[in-house]
């Protein structure tokens, strides 16, 4: 049996008195792709942010390869090297060019030399169809291009797990395909991924497992074929129904 890459156990998180994550447990195996779906406010983003300590949480534990993220081995840098995240709004640094956006963390946080980190960055850019843009500034790129750069930036530290938070939600429809293709390629290469998405077709395509969140709890967890065609929980059914009515599945 392969070890769990990411293991979230009984994660509880409050914002003030507002219970946002309620005893969430979830395991992601190596090379596995897990998609989180659920209505706005159900706690999907918060769950991802807990995993790489962007926000503190109240109870429970998270471990990577069997080691708690609070253990000494995960001084912050190690955790952020092993777990990458990409945000809906790309959040590239606007004042530095694409190459520097990608090499900033490897060089300044992980002590990789300029030459080595740039070489690796160029390879990744080429892999994702972004060669020739290394000297461009983010605002000179389309949203889809920026998001691909953001994915490359997250991959530059060679993480074991990549978390993607609605990475296509801010994109024009004609740009979404390019980004989704990049993610499918990553799956083919065996990247372990935890993906929050509203693109149900994509989730069906790429996920090994889909989790439906509501009110800070995972109400249903199943392979995509099962969850999308024969959901067990009536709430899941309702949610998917609404999505179908909105023409998004």
């Amino acid at each position, binding site marked *: 049996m392969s070890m769990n890459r990411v293991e979230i156990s009984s994660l509880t998180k409050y914002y003030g008195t507002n219970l946002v994550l309620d005893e969430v447990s979830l395991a992601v195996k190596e090379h596995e792709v897990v998609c989180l779906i659920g209505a706005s406010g159900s706690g999907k983003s918060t769950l991802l942010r807990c995993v790489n300590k*962007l926000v503190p949480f109240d109870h429970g534990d998270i471990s990577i390869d069997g080691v708690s993220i609070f253990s000494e081995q995960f001084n912050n*840098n190690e*955790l*952020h090297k092993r777990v990458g995240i990409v945000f809906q709004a790309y959040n590239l*640094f*606007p004042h*530095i060019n694409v190459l520097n956006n990608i090499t900033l963390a490897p060089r*300044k946080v*992980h002590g990789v030399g300029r030459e080595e980190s740039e070489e690796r960055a160029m390879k990744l850019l080429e892999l994702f169809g972004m060669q020739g843009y290394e000297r461009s500034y983010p*605002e000179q790129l389309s949203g889809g291009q920026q998001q691909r750069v953001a994915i490359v930036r997250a991959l530059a530290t060679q993480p074991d797990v990549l978390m993607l938070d609605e990475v296509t939600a801010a994109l024009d429809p004609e740009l979404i395909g390019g980004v989704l293709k990049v993610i499918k390629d990553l799956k083919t290469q065996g990247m372990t991924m935890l993906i929050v998405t509203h693109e149900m077709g994509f989730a069906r395509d790429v996920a090994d497992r889909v989790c439906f969140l509501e009110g800070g709890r995972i109400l249903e967890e199943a392979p995509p074929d099962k969850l999308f065609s024969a959901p067990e929980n009536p709430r899941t059914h309702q949610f998917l129904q609404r999505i179908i009515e909105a023409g998004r599945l």
Partner: protein
Amino acid sequence: MSSDARVPAPPARRTPSLKERLVPALISVVSVTVFFGTIAWLVTSAEQWPRIRFQFFNPDAIMAAFPNVLRGFGINMMVWAIALVAIGVWALILAVFRSLNGPILAPLKVFSIVYIDLLRGIPSLLLVLLFGFGVPALQIPGLPRSSLFWGSVAMVLGYSAYAAEVYRSGMEAVHDGQRAAAKALGLSQWQTLYYAIIPQAVRNVLPALLNLAVALQKDVALLSVIGVRDAVREAQIYTARTFNYSSLIAAAILFLIATIPMARITDYVARKDQERRLQRTV
């Protein structure tokens, strides 16, 4: 290209004829000439005009006072330039202190808050008097005793409080997502400030900082009250000797020559900044 397609085509523009272009220009030239000509005529035809001209706009007096006033103005501009650099650095340090989080760093934060409150609340003139007269009077060994030095220090300390608030607004205007991204990449608090927040903040507030620079360009004349022989002081010395105020006009002209181009540069930078912001939101 795709976004261009959605914008309705502008109405076809035909080039205006020579006459159509010339007539409005001519009208404005005439109206400006008439307007200011009338004012000039009214002023110069007033009964007191010859006396005013003699007292304030006397070419001989201006020429006579000019060399000293110019030398004094050199001091003004030197103080200005050095103070600008010092303010730019010190204010940034204050702003960074103020933005710090965490219990260990709390003293720095509190220091910065208190400093800014105090020094923004005291008139610049009072600071200049306190430092320019007060510190040299203490005669502390090892410290400089020049009032020029301490007066400049007062200007730097006072203006830094304003500039720190400007920087701070710039840092707060940097989107939260930038901090999240920096943290997710593993940058420390200092690295986040240095590589991500400060460069963007400075770019955000450059126009506001330049406005402060223009204000400082005039305020350096405050040093004249503590005996620094700057342009204003030299002009006053001439006035005291001759009972003619034209030397003050000479100083005023020098300040205008310096401040008007600075104001234009500030406008230009502000306009560029505006364009950059618009571009980004489209």
